[in-house]
């Protein structure tokens, strides 16, 4: 028989919930983790991992199509979606198995079923009450839609988009944020005709404007269409297609409409409000130490307002575990959480955009290094650049990058931001040639007043 009380009861086994569980277990706490579906949550089963698998298939397809540019006699006969899906599912199932092994190794008690929070400190599952000295809410998020736009048939969200058995010929993507541009990128690589509709004036509007400009230029070259600054007004579907109307009178016909207008917190229906937990427009309200208004009840991940990213969930989960164990961890700096958009080209950033930095510091120094000067990027035939934002007389407070594979440069950028490094700290560390990291190095050299390969 399973124990029904523990130091910690966690509701939801996604990125936030399981990271909290593992870390708490490491620190000697007993942990009960309640999950109604599959350990790993959105990220592993319907989010980060499957999308990145599709994006890699997309890269392979592009390479095959463009091999000639590199002297390779390759050709592309098409996409075998069954093959793509089995590749993707293979990756997921291997990682899923690993995660289950970790839960076991960490001696986390898994409870399968839908849980309801019951105050002051318990979660009920199928009539059994699991009581925790502490409770962590981690029920994540769901794909939102717009008022009057019902999901179904040809109107889909990422959930359905990840399991298509064919490549659509023509798609409209509603929303030019991270998820929207990633799917647009995949489908374009797979040969579809793609149009993105974004109400805000630019793609990836949460990023520095520099990133939007670079990405828009690259998408234009790739033939990905987008309409920005225009609102969606309605969609009607038939047996043969879906028709999307915009505020400006345009009507777009397509096979599919992907609704990627953001994710809503999954905070209703699990007893939160009923038990007196404060909710603000759907998000569970917490202080900077991730405490809800109820004692010993915490919340982590996508149900807490802020960046909706898996590794933010990890970080918050770890934070709460350490907090409960009395380690008094440092409050998380939300701006220090790295952000990567894995479309082609990739967008990666950490710290503040120029606009945000200006607001904070009054004036800032910026520098842009164009990937045209970077040997490895030339070899990859990718365009883009790196923009640094520096506080006056201070450290670098923002890094924004655009280009194929720049997502992997964010590790370095994150240390620089997190440790508040000055260009002068980075400059003496000459980077490996020829890598894309050199572009980052060159940008710091330039800001330190000692440019090496910088074209005026």
């Amino acid at each position: 028989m399973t124990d029904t009380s523990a130091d910690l009861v966690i509701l939801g086994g996604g990125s936030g919930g399981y990271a909290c569980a593992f870390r708490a277990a490491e620190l000697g706490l007993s942990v009960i983790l309640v999950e109604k579906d599959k350990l790993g949550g959105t990220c592993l089963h319907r989010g980060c991992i499957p999308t990145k698998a599709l994006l890699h298939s997309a890269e392979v397809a592009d390479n095959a199509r463009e091999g000639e540019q590199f002297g390779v006699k390759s050709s592309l006969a098409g996409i075998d979606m069954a093959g793509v899906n089995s590749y993707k599912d293979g990756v997921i199932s291997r990682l899923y198995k690993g995660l289950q092994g970790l839960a076991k190794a960490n001696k986390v008690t898994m409870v399968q079923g839908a849980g309801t929070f019951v105050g002051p400190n318990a979660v009920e599952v199928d009539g059994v009450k699991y009581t925790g000295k502490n409770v962590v809410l981690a029920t994540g998020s769901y794909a939102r839609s717009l008022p009057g736009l019902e999901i179904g048939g040809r109107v889909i969200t990422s959930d359905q988009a990840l399991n298509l058995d064919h490549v659509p010929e023509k798609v409209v993507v509603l929303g030019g944020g991270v998820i929207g541009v990633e799917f647009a990128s995949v489908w374009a690589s797979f040969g579809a005709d793609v149009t993105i509709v974004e109400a805000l004036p630019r793609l990836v509007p949460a990023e520095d404007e520099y990133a939007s400009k670079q990405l828009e230029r690259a998408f234009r070259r790739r033939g990905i269409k987008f309409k920005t600054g225009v609102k969606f007004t309605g969609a009607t579907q038939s047996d043969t297609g879906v028709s999307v109307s915009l505020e400006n009178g345009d009507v777009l016909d397509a096979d599919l409409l992907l609704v990627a207008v953001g994710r809503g917190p999954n905070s209703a229906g699990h007893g939160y409000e009923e038990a007196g937990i404060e909710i603000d427009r759907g998000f569970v309200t917490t202080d900077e130490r991730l405490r809800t208004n109820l004692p010993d009840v915490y919340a982590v991940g996508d149900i807490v307002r802020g960046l909706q990213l898996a590794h933010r969930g990890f970080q918050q989960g770890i934070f709460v575990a350490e907090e409960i164990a009395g380690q008094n961890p440092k409050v998380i700096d939300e701006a220090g959480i790295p952000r990567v958009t894995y479309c082609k080209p990739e967008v990666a950033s950490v710290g503040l955009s120029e606009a945000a930095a200006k607001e904070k510091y009054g004036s800032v120094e910026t520098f842009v290094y164009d990937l045209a000067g970077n040997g490895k990027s030339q070899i990859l035939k990718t365009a883009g650049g790196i923009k640094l934002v520096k506080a006056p007389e201070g450290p670098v407070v923002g890094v924004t990058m655009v280009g194929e594979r720049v997502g992997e440069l964010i590790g370095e950028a994150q240390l620089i931001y997190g440790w508040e490094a000055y260009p002068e700290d980075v400059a003496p560390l000459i980077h490996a040639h020829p890598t894309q990291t050199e572009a980052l190095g060159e940008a710091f050299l330039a800001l330190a007043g000692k440019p090496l390969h910088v074209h005026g």
Partner: protein
Amino acid sequence: APQGGYVPLAKPPVRKLAKDLGVDLRALTGSGPGGVITREDVEASLAAPVAE
């Protein structure tokens, strides 16, 4: 400090550590090469606070 020039007192992770611990690097003398303040200097300043 020299005009306009920025002279790091310590390597970034050590500066960050000092900041997190509330240690003012300007009050310390570095024992590292070139007078750089080391992690040990920061830790020592915590262990034995100097009189005002």
